[in-house]
């Protein structure tokens, strides 16, 4: 009874937050509930008849969880934090608004993963990748990895661990789990020539020698092997083969699983989204989906807001591609270059907590492949000057840099400078993406994200 009253109170707060025009109220109800009753998360999750699944990763967790929702959502009613509020409060809020839900599907912040996994006792976790990200907030990668190791070891023995086998750090964390499904890419034709500058876990977990890569795909993810102690990528249970990347539009690949092989296509660009699709397919298999569901779900998937979003602005379009850390931004750059690098680019760098207050990460991004064909960079956001310096010292002629720290001004300028029928490519950090969407929403171009989230 007590919990029921708390739920009603917390929900009322969410409605008030929306009425007051203070965003979607996607975390406020959960914050209230978590404060009133810290055990509520476990209690609410315990009521889900099919249990819960958690998706965590540095990059791609929102997209991966949304893909899983698309694949399994037709058959089971989900409690899913689809607006991307991925701390305890966001998960609690999703549980509050899930009357009749059968399965919990939660994307979880990598720092919050141990706490949330401990409370909701998931029946499956899907671990996508660990990259260096916001060192000011998360601390060193090794520290997160240690906390993940403990959290994974503490999972129920019957719980599934779905893990990206191309990440040596995660393979190591999942070692010893009996119910494990390991996924990875098996297609050297899409491998990079060498490890990117910011590659993280490139030294053997066992002996410290640098790994040899038969193929490196994204950051330190790849087909690795230690030349010294012979620790190597384990055999893949689920693999992507024969990958075809179609510019900025879509990607397709042979999804090889214990249940057979299926050609699947996902309307998202880039190898990093192949990893997301692989992770989603693997977790869905463990949750009982078949290859038909997976193929259909991935095929009709729409990107989570701001990750890859086209906005129509009169007779032009604006393409938003979120950047938040070196590994993710490198893949965005690579995808843009593969599709024909744009002549004009708007990059928005903010330094709020959700972006990382330490902006040094932009110096670890390999922006250089874009610079050769760049006619104009519009640098905007709270740290626009720092971004402009990154490109100046990367070799871009300062005369080609337009510095407009105000996001609204920069967006208007960027759209106006784009020829009719053309597309403005925008790379925003997280809070800059939210702000740019709000500006676009004020102009009637997009729906607010909380409407998108409940749609």
């Amino acid at each position, binding site marked *: 009874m007590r919990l029921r009253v708390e739920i009603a109170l917390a929900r009322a707060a969410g409605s008030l937050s929306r009425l007051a025009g203070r965003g979607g109220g996607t975390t406020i109800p959960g914050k209230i509930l978590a404060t009133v009753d810290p055990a509520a998360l476990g209690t609410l999750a315990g009521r889900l008849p099919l249990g819960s699944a958690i998706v965590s990763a540095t990059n791609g967790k929102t997209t991966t969880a949304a893909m899983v929702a698309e694949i399994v959502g037709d058959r089971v009613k989900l409690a899913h934090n689809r607006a991307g509020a991925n701390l305890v409060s966001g998960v609690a809020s999703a549980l509050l608004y899930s009357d009749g839900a059968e399965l919990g599907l939660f994307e979880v912040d990598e720092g919050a993963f141990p706490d949330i996994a401990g409370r909701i006792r998931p029946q499956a976790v899907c671990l996508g990748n660990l990259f260096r990200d916001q060192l000011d907030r998360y601390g*060193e990668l090794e520290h997160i990895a240690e906390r993940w190791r403990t959290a994974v070891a503490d999972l129920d023995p019957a719980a599934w661990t779905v893990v990206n086998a191309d990440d040596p750090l995660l393979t190591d964390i999942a070692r010893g789990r009996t119910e494990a499904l390991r996924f990875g890419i098996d297609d050297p034709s899409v491998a990079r020539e060498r490890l990117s500058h910011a590659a993280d876990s490139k030294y053997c977990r066992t002996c410290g020698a640098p790994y040899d890569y038969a193929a490196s795909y994204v950051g330190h993810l790849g087909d690795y092997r230690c030349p010294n102690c012979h620790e190597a990528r384990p055999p893949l249970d689920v693999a992507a083969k024969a990958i075809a990347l179609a510019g900025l539009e879509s990607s397709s690949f042979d999804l090889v699983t214990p249940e057979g092989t299926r050609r699947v296509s996902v309307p998202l660009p880039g190898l990093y989204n192949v990893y997301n699709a692989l992770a989603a397919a693997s977790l869905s298999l463990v949750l009982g989906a078949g290859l038909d569901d997976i193929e259909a779900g991935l095929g009709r998937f729409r990107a989570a807001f701001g990750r890859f979003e086209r906005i129509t602005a009169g007779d032009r379009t604006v393409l938003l591609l979120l950047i938040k850390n070196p590994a993710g931004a490198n893949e965005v750059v690579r995808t843009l270059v593969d599709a024909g690098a744009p002549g004009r680019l708007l990059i928005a760098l903010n330094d709020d907590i959700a972006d990382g207050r*330490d902006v040094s*990460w932009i110096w670890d991004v390999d922006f250089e492949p874009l610079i050769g064909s760049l006619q104009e960079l519009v640098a905007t956001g709270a740290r626009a000057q720092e971004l402009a310096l990154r490109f100046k010292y990367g070799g871009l002629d300062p005369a080609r840099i337009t510095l407009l720290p105000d996001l609204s001004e920069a967006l208007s300028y960027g759209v106006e400078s784009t020829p009719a029928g053309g597309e403005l490519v925008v790379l925003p950090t997280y809070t800059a993406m939210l702000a740019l969407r709000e500006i676009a929403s004020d102009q009637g171009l997009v729906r607010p994200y909380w409407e998108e989230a409940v749609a």
Partner: protein
Amino acid sequence: MKLVVGHLYPEYLNIYADRGNIAVLERRSAWRGIELDYRTIGLGEPVRPGEHDLYYVGGGQDREQALIAPDLAAKGPALIEAVEAGAAFLAVCGGYQLLGRFYRDRSGAELPGIGLLPHHTVAGERRMIGDVLLECELDPGGPQTLAGFENHAGRTHLDEGAEALGRVVSGFGNNGKDGFEGCRVAGAVGTYLHGPLLPRNAWLADWLIARALARRVGEVPELEPLPDELESAAKDVSAERAKSRGGRF
């Protein structure tokens, strides 16, 4: 004119975008017609006397720092000799710690440093994270400022009489207590400030380039000024950040 830069362990110590610092040294040299010959110095590769005019070492995670520490210890005497012979040196974060006498971790175990800079470091409980603003006077002629970002658990204590890089205006600095940041001996500078440090603090890049050139031409040269409006604007924003949200205990 040519300068030879030796970057120590770039494969291991690169956590806070150290290549930004290298890019600034390269471009600012090139814009003045100075050719910068960039060389890496890896594990097991010797430091030959007189080869380099300027050394750089960045920061890494604990795991990477422990991997290179024994090798750095072996290079220590050659690096000290190089600085005594006039080479410039910039060491950031973990690299700064390893140039001191030792680093003692939370368990009490000591990682030996090379003793190039007169300090030692002891790991503390809480990390010191945030924007920092310093006031420095490396040469007579009025103070200058440095704006950067710090993120370290180590508390560095300078020896009695040692020269700091600067006085902390906002932020934690060496240990969050004594109000000093970094350490300087001749042309060698160690600091916790990354960001990276040199793009928005162009004067320090030029100071290092001039010190390195002095080894070749016999005196510290006057460098041709460059248009630094963007650099100054970026520093102003960073300095504001330090004033409004720099860390303090």
